[in-house]
């Protein structure tokens, strides 16, 4: 196990409390926790890509970063107006 996989495990472990925060508390506090969780996910995917020595996994991190941004923006727009 190299240092990248150790870092990925660290990010994934931190994902658990972030996920817990995302299901508890007030609505917008959950959104903040969700944003933190998506950032941690992207960093974990980059670490896993480097740790497993696979180029393709970097694309997954890029796509996850972009899609989580767009999804959160849509969600926030709905929170503003309708939810």
């Amino acid at each position, binding site marked *: 196990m190299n240092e990248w996989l150790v870092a990925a495990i660290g990010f994934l472990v931190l994902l658990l409390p972030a996920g817990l925060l995302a299901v508890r508390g007030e609505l917008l506090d959950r959104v903040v926790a969700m*944003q933190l969780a998506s950032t941690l996910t992207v960093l974990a995917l980059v670490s896993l890509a480097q740790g497993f020595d696979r180029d393709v996994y970097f694309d997954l991190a890029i796509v996850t970063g972009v899609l989580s941004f767009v999804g959160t923006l849509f969600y926030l727009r709905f929170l503003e107006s309708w939810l």
Partner: protein
Amino acid sequence: MSVQGILVGALLVLAGVTAVISLSGVALMAGTANRLHYLAPVSTIGALAVAAAVVVEQSLDARGIKALIVLAILAGLAPVLVHATARAARVRRFGDWRLDRTPSRSSGRR
């Protein structure tokens, strides 16, 4: 262990520390506005540290460039999300995001 390996390890530790700081802030701070501030460390310093670690190990090949793209996405788009979240919180609380809440004819959107 080479200097390169030590540098990569130090950058990854830095990324992990910033992630812990962000998580602690989001968990412990009171109120959405206070919590929002703690998204910044992991999406800027943390992402920068991970991207720098990839570039140190790989130089600027395909992986290094992709890591820099990830850094640009995280560090560039996080402020937009923070702004959108603060705006949504304000709209939910006051009904409008502007300081002057008199209705404007020029803008039909909230």
